[in-house]
């Protein structure tokens, strides 16, 4: 049981932006993916969820090859992708955003339990919320879809570190419910702290793959991996 990328290459415009990457996301754990700008982190997540196609290799979700599936079917198979940027639906209220994925009242309550502060904003237009609150809505919405695996792309972008600190324990909490989390983050230290596994990716190649602790306790290793 895992979400697997087997020897995947992704091409975009001029050439490959992901080259022969293999990785595995385990249920109940956070896998953190870091790397410099333009390394291909977003492209990697996008190939997992089907935003872009892969040119070779395969993607497996709990043993099922999903590489040819539509985005919708991958979502139904249990994959949630929180894209880079604020992926709210601005014309929808907070409640409507959550209702898109919550099939039952229990799903809705479970999502709101992550961020009780959203309760009193349920009927506000999402566009009127602060950046941090918007990311809460996006994360809660993804969780309400009861995914098996969740891909998070730089949720901290444009947020003050204190605001992002509010999201970190929730991401950890989501993993504790049995969801496999693939976390892409610029704030490497915060993201590595809650992760078991870590990968460093530079210009489309994996330059480190191992325990998150090792990177955290050995800054030299992290630096070396970043330099490729």
């Amino acid at each position, binding site marked *: 049981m895992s979400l697997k990328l087997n020897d995947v290459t992704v091409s975009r415009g001029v050439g490959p932006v992901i080259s022969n990457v293999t990785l595995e996301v385990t249920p109940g754990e956070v896998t953190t993916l870091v790397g410099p700008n333009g390394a291909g982190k977003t492209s990697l997540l996008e190939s997992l*969820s089907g935003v872009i196609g892969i040119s070779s290799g395969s993607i497996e979700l709990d043993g099922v090859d999903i590489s040819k599936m539509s985005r*919708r079917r991958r*979502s139904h198979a249990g994959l949630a992708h929180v*894209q880079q940027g604020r992926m709210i*639906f601005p014309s929808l209220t907070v409640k*409507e955003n959550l*209702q*898109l*994925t919550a099939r039952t009242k229990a799903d809705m309550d479970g999502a709101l339990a992550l961020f009780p502060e959203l309760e009193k904003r349920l009927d506000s237009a999402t566009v009127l919320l602060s950046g941090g609150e918007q990311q809460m809505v996006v994360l809660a919405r993804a969780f309400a879809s009861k995914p098996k695996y969740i891909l998070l792309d730089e949720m901290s972008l444009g947020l003050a570190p204190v605001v992002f600190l509010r999201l970190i324990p929730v991401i950890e909490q989501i993993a504790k419910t049995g969801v496999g989390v693939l976390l892409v983050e610029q704030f490497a230290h915060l993201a590595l702290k809650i992760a078991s596994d870590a990968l460093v990716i530079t210009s489309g190649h994996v330059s480190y793959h191992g325990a998150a602790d090792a990177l955290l306790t050995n800054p030299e290793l992290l630096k070396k991996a970043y330099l490729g």
Partner: protein
Amino acid sequence: MWLNNVVAGLTPGATYAIVGVLLTLMSQLTRVVNFAQVAVGMFGGYISLTLVTKMHLPIFVGVIVGVLVAAILSALLGWIIATWLSEASTSARSAVTVAGLLFLISLAFILFGYRNQPFPTIVAGPLFTLPGGAVVSKVTVVVIVLAIVITVGSWAFLKFTAFGVKLRAVSDRQMAAELLGLNVKMLNVSVWFVTGAIAGITVALVGPSASNDYVTLSSIVIPGAAAALVGAFKRMDLALIGGLAIGAIQGLFAGFPNLLIVRDWVPIIFIILFLLWNQRKEVWDVAR
């Protein structure tokens, strides 16, 4: 006298209003300016006509089939666009509807011939007379009521139903909606189906009292677009008012024989005024 003319302009006005509201919905929900919006209704109208006159079916059966044909043709066009141009620009998607418009007109010539027959009448006769002597016909009232019902109904549907919420989500961010597992194609095609059906119903109602040759009827999309522009292709309420206003002004001009020619220019003048006004706002924005 002039009131009579204004009232006479309200039937076409309400028709423009309906088309304007449909175009607004299409533009908001499916990212397309649908030039074939009325053409599908025209085609459905001729299907009804054929069923009633050649196959001697009852009028209501003919109309129902015609409306269904309009809806299915519209859905088919929507399906083509959703399948092959799902991530294309609005202009590329809209270009396909121009092709659809031309195709339907030429197919109508081939299937239904070059000589037009009037449509069978569904609603006819006067309803009441205003104090000044202006006669209000049943069709006028029915079409105005229909225009209002469509506007309010669409608004309420989008606001209060789960299906409507999904449509708005797709309209906001198609990709994010797909990633949440929404069936974007089905949602899109259903909008095409419903707006096609409404176009069919509208043509069935006003077709009998208008010049119904293929081109003239399909071209109602132009004053309809002028109405939609009044609401900037965003607001259905303004499209409704815009359509009625264009019709009323056209009717007013019809009262002055010298100005008759101006009548056909009213929608174009509305379009130009809108573009100028829009331009002015942009300049103003830049100045800030």
